[in-house]
């Protein structure tokens, strides 16, 4: 199980990092989301223990699995979600502000004045 999770984290993180260095901003956001979720899986793997589900009443002497990481990862997922929404909003604003995403090399519109100064 640890190995499976480690592989999943590695693949997610690798794919995210690959997307992050792309020039397409939407892919960059995809990369951010993948990397954040790699971290969420990492939290789960940090508290991976074998045992019964931790639901009250507990039988004495029986090991239960760690419930805390579930709570942590739930919080982290919500934060990831919120961050992703904010980043997408920003990308949209950048897209609207520059009319063409800085991705496409063959953009029709001439660069705006403030782009050329101080770059």
């Amino acid at each position, binding site marked *: 199980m640890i190995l499976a999770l480690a592989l999943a984290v590695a693949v997610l993180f690798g794919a995210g990092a690959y997307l992050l260095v792309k020039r397409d901003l939407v892919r960059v956001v995809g990369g951010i989301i993948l990397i954040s979720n790699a971290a969420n899986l990492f939290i789960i793997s940090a508290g991976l223990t074998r045992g019964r589900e931790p639901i009250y009443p507990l039988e004495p002497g029986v090991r239960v699995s760690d419930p805390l990481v579930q709570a942590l990862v739930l919080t982290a997922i919500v934060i990831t979600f*919120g961050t992703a929404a904010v980043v997408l909003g920003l990308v949209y604003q950048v897209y609207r502000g520059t009319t063409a995403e800085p991705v496409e090399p063959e953009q029709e519109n001439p660069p705006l004045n403030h782009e050329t100064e101080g770059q």
Partner: protein
Amino acid sequence: MSDGALLLLPLAIAWFAALLLSPLDGRRRWVGWVAVSALGAGLAAWIWLAVRVWRSGPIEMIAGNWGPGIGIRLRADELGIAFALISILVLLAALAYEVLGGVHERALPELVLFMATGLTGVFLTADIFNFYVFFEIAMISSFVLASYGTEARHYRAALTFTLVNVLGSVVFLSGIASLYHLTGTLDMDAVAIRVADAPSGSVMLTAVLIFVAFGLKLGLFPFHAWVPLVYRDTWPAVAAILSAALANIGSYGLLRFGAGLLPRELDLTAGGIILLGSLSIIYGAIQAIGARTGSEVIAWSSIGQVGYILVAIGIGGQIGLEAAVLYALINALNKLVLFLAIGLRGWLVGASVALVAFSVAGVPPSAGFFGKLDIFRASVADGRNALIVLVIVGGALSLVYMFQFYQHRFWMNGGDEDVSPLSSRLLVLGLAVAIVAIGFWPEPLLALSARAAAVLPGGGV
């Protein structure tokens, strides 16, 4: 008022004010002033808390009446209070400045209040995951704040800032998860005890993760690439908030996690940390001399200035940590005034920048002099002669770039017709005079940073 309620007071004020103001249009003057007074009330609550802690020691409470070791612990000690007072003061000044000049996006006052909530929580919590949650509250407000402005460049700066800092948060979250895995607890005190028994290799890796995360927030030398890009293009008041309030999380985090939870790892890597700090100082200063626009000069300068904090943390011990706290606080004040001054025109602004320039360079009598002096003392006590040279050379270089900045800004561009409102200029001048006043009467700040350093295990005499 009971201790627990007193602890929740600054948090509650900022949070409820932010929630209540959210539906309102922040462009209206009165909404802005309500937000400013809420921040003022939050600051007053912090001062009340500070007086209480100063007299009778740290205050603690466990949220939700859970037993110790189960619930989330909140704690106000001198270290958190020192950083909180400065950060909330910075937010207050920056928001007042923006309201005086005219807010032009509806969410600004609310976002500043949400950031105050996040910062207040970060400085109050004694639980590492709770730290992360409040840290993200502050970060997400800062992502939106960074896009404040009307031009496309503001959005682009915000996007750069957001992408880099989300990565930093992911690294930090991984560090928190590793600490939990190694110690089985989230409580800071328990982590500090149990981490000593954990396998040292894994702890070192965790320490590196946490160092990288806070290094990114601070904009230290190898992680600095985003700093000039972002500070050049964001709105002046927002740049002030990001660099003088939000970046405090970085220095506070390095102190709390590095010196507080992982002192052994900090000791082992002290040489490397001092080296990174020194590179930051020199590289930041040289780039600042070569920078063209005012905000770029200050951005590069801030990379150099945080180098001093890192050097002081690397030296460690009561004297080093004390210097780190003091330098972080004074640096926040300096950058607040410098970034606010960039957005203004008129002769009073020039006077303020001149006053703060001496503080950045560490010329007496100004607050910056005592920051440099403390680092100087720490280097001497540690017998590191190279560092003594570094502090002097760094100070000289900062005098050069601050003078260049002043010359460009106020001599060569003379005769600007559109002078900024007198009230904004008076606010900035007042802050600059306060920095000089601290230089004349530094004892309260010195005592506060000494007590703050004594909270940490490496500190205390």
